[in-house]
């Protein structure tokens, strides 16, 4: 099961900052485990940001993103209480999502 996500969305002078944390190993496929075996490639490929159900950012990412990814996105305007959703899917088809309200 995918590890936790955490998100904050804060309205500041007409712009909403969305900061989202995700638990993921983002394995490059080149790292060896303590037994000397290669750890298989395992990374998030897509991150989607929605505001009140409407997609506003579509991201494609690679194993070059750091382990436990952290992204900040910005939304024009926004109002307190707007529903923010972020979801991801990785190269194994595993997914996770979280949502919060703009504060």
């Amino acid at each position, binding site marked *: 099961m995918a*590890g*936790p*996500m*955490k998100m904050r969305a804060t309205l500041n002078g007409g712009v909403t900052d969305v*900061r989202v*944390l*995700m*638990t993921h*190993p983002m394995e490059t496929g080149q790292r060896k485990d303590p037994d000397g075996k290669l750890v298989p490639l395992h990374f998030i490929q897509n991150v989607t940001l929605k505001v009140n159900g409407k997609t506003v950012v579509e991201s494609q990412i690679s194993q070059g993103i*750091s*382990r*436990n990814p*952290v992204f*900040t996105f910005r939304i024009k305007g926004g109002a307190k209480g707007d529903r923010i959703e972020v979801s991801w899917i990785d190269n194994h088809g595993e997914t996770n999502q979280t949502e919060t309200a703009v504060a």
Partner: protein
Amino acid sequence: MKKVLGFCVVLGGAFCASLPAQDAKKEIQRYRQMVAEGSPAELFEVEGEALWKKPQGPNKVSLEKCDLGGGPGVLKGAYARLPRYFKDADRVMDLETRLLHCAVTLQGRRREEAAARVFGSADRPSEMESLSAYIAAQSRGMKMAPGLSHPKEKEAYAMGRALYFHRTGAWDFSCASCHGEEGKRIRMQDLPVLYKPEHARPVVSTWPAYRVSTSQFITLQWRMNNCYQQMRMPEPDFGSDTTVALILFLTATGKGEPYRGPGTKR
């Protein structure tokens, strides 16, 4: 003349670039600042909260009734007042030692089982690490004020101070061998002089922490353990009086600083 410092690439090490030393220092500080802003430490708080509330052990109860010093289940400000003396155990305990105590007394777990995996990995943090993240976070903004009035607290503080300056091991080191003189560094890493309050304050107010270089969440018990490893010493027992005394000495030296962790380390 401006002092020039070079910087080498990690892989290969053949290519070096130069920057004036002062700019380099400023840039590294900026790097640390930016990393701290994007720290995944909070993810461990989420896991820690779930663990705190999860029934475990033969008694099938959670840790929610664990008394961290402020009464059963009181988390707010608890971390900022540790280590401290606990009457029920008749000894001074830091957070992790106390959590182990609660796992045994409340959950009915065997001490060996509960302490079998106290230091986790990037793939799988230990229970102690996640719990520490969650509990420490409940002290944000509160001044660090470990116990220093009970005779056993005073005794532990004095022992911690003596341990700090005690030279032993295969390489004749004490803590002060590296953390003893101002303005020194190991490789590029600045070394805080931890018996001085102005150096201890920013340190004790940001542990436990997420460690960027290993993607692990690390605790003060881990820090003591790893320092002794690098001092070429045998291994200190988890939650031993030795480790607690050192943690109390360091925390007491940095007392008064508002807690702003869990932090981010190199």
